[in-house]
């Protein structure tokens, strides 16, 4: 039995390699028997330096790189960036392009939420639901592939509009997929709300009251499941969301059950929005012309990603390369809630609580340079870092 000498604590490590997490993150759970008494997180295993890398690309190249920030919600990243650059140049995408952006975003929300439902069911040990949701998710993946040519990185956006048009054949196939999924989602709604064994694992677990949710600054479906009215599609409509009747899905219970219910109800909302978009596709161009060099300015654009608020800051210095792009993804806002909710629960509930916020670690990791006067040498150069690494492991081996 491993005891920390100083504190006599029993620490369970989860990650960076652990079957519960398919992405690298490290959590240390202090447990007393089965009860969790403390939780700490260490992120940063998947830092890829994308923000810095786009500074050496031109605006169009940066679009494709930023789309690869996230493998699940790739479209929202490209949209947020494209809208930001369009704002810098005072251009708006044509109405038809905006509608197609909304269409792809909602299809992406469907695939993301279905994926999450499966993963969450797997964490609860309910693999049947996992298999079924992932099978049904293929329907929307196929529709996305038929529409855009890709399953994951759709590359729907260009700066100033979208790349492809929606043909009547696409409309029929998407509507068919949505009809099928709506029927299936009714079934999942029934499981999430009524399956007694499943409810044992979700009801009253990880309760986050509204006040706490506001203090912790959570976003997205996690916040809405605690009754916080926070949905950018309604609060600050972008890309023509104000043309459609979007309803904010709220639940005031704040536990895992509510988080399941909110996400499944958001699926229905996404089906409805897709039908509305396809019914009223405005005619017209797909792209607005935009210059290669972007005006010297800075801007902020915000998008409601499937996981919550996605924030982009873009600054231009008048050249054809962005001067600075800052990305804030929703997971980093929600991570604090996991650590604070885990305490006091059973060890078995922690994976559920963690997955309850729909974490996405690879878009989470940032490098922060803390500036203190006279301590500039805390920055490593590449050679220093390499030498430090070699020495560190030599010490460790000994």
């Amino acid at each position, binding site marked *: 039995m491993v005891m920390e000498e100083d504190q006599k604590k029993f620490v369970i490590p989860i990650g960076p390699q652990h079957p519960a997490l398919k992405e690298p993150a490290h959590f240390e759970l202090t447990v007393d028997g089965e009860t969790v008494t403390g939780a700490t997180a260490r992120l940063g295993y998947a830092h890829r330096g994308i923000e810095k890398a786009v500074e050496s690309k031109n605006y169009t190249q940066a679009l494709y790189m930023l789309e690869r920030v996230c493998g699940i919600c790739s479209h929202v990243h490209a949209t947020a960036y494209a809208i930001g650059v369009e704002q810098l140049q005072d251009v708006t995408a044509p109405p038809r392009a905006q509608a197609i952006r909304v269409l792809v975003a909602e299809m992406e929300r469907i695939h993301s939420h279905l994926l999450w439902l499966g993963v969450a069911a797997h964490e609860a040990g309910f693999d049947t639901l996992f298999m079924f949701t992932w099978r049904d998710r293929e329907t929307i993946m196929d529709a996305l592939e038929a529409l855009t040519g890709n399953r994951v990185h759709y590359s729907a956006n260009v700066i100033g509009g979208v790349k492809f048009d929606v043909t009547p054949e696409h409309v029929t196939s998407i509507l068919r997929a949505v009809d099928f999924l709506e029927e299936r989602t009714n079934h999942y709604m029934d499981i999430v709300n009524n399956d007694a064994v499943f409810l044992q694992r979700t009801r009253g677990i990880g309760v986050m009251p509204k006040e706490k949710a506001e203090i912790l600054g959570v976003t997205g479906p996690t916040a809405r499941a605690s009754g916080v009215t926070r949905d950018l599609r309604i609060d600050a409509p972008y890309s023509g969301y104000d043309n459609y009747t979007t309803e904010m899905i709220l639940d005031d219970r704040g536990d895992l059950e509510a988080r399941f219910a909110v996400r499944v109800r958001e699926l229905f909302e996404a089906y409805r929005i897709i039908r509305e978009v396809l019914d009223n596709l405005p005619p017209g161009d797909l792209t607005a012309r935009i210059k290669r060099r972007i005006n010297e300015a800075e801007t902020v654009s915000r998008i409601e990603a499937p996981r919550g608020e996605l924030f982009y800051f873009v600054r231009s210095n008048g050249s054809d390369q962005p001067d600075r792009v800052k990305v804030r993804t929703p997971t980093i806002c929600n991570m604090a809630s996991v650590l604070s909710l885990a305490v006091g629960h*059973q060890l*078995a509930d922690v994976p559920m609580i963690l997955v309850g916020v729909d974490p996405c670690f690879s878009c989470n990791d940032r490098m922060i340079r803390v500036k203190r006067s006279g301590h500039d040498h805390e920055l490593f150069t590449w050679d220093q870092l390499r030498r430090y690494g070699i020495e560190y492991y030599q010490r460790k081996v000994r």
Partner: protein
Amino acid sequence: METLTAIVALLLFPGGIALIAVGLLYKWVNLKLLARAQNRQGPRWFQPFADIAKLLAKEEIIPDGVNRRFFVILPTIALAGALTAALYVPVFGVNPSYSFSGDLIVVIYLLSLLTLCIGLAGSNNNSRFSVIGSTRALTQLFSYEVPFLLAMLGPALVAGSWQISEIHDYSAGRLLLLSQPVGFIIAIIGLMGKLEMPPFDSPEAETEIVAGSLTEYSGRGLGLFRIGQGVELVIGLTLVAAFYLGGVGNPIAFVLKTLGIVVGLAVLQALATRLRIDQTVGLWWRYGALLVLAQWAVLIVFRAV
């Protein structure tokens, strides 16, 4: 001659090789049915055999900080216990090789040996996942063992004997499932708890504690534990079929009845979410034990009348 029969019974049939092969085959049936219920293809029939062959051929890594002798001998004891139990049980529909008054208790004890060994294997270890897993395995052992034993003693009570062959003779042709439905259900679910099948798989919940007690086991040790679980599956199925489903007088009845139970097990596994360990304990003591005791009361009253 008698020695030769004993050796054959122990090593070839009905114990030993035949039992191990059938145990792995039943594991495959369970995997395949579960997969089909979950809309998957599932493995091909030789998958458990291939797994075991590969595990037995691999290097066994003994981690630092364990009692080495203990680490190596625990899987052997677990498998030996399960194989010994087979000698007193009518597996494959043939009469038990050995029989004496009260052998039911011995068999149930031998079947618990596997879980006990898994629990000890976990606690004889520095890995934190193993320690948590072994705590859970032993907690679960204490929760399902009593209701399972009581469910198994229900038929013994009406047969008026604690000898497996005599209970089997009594239950042959009588569907005790109809007169003792609670006992049957508890026995089935107890079997799932014994074998750590979902939803009672919290001792090896991969999303929390990797592989529980067996996290540090590899190669031969892990392979022997797996074989032991397969053997225990067959013995458990045989006991339930012999006591509750009108006996397993011949091989065909054995195959049909045990496979019937496996179908039920697969459906139950597919339907439920994994229970937390406190929920498992609550389920067994709050409902399982009380229900089976109530059934006992009914049986005793009827016998007295």
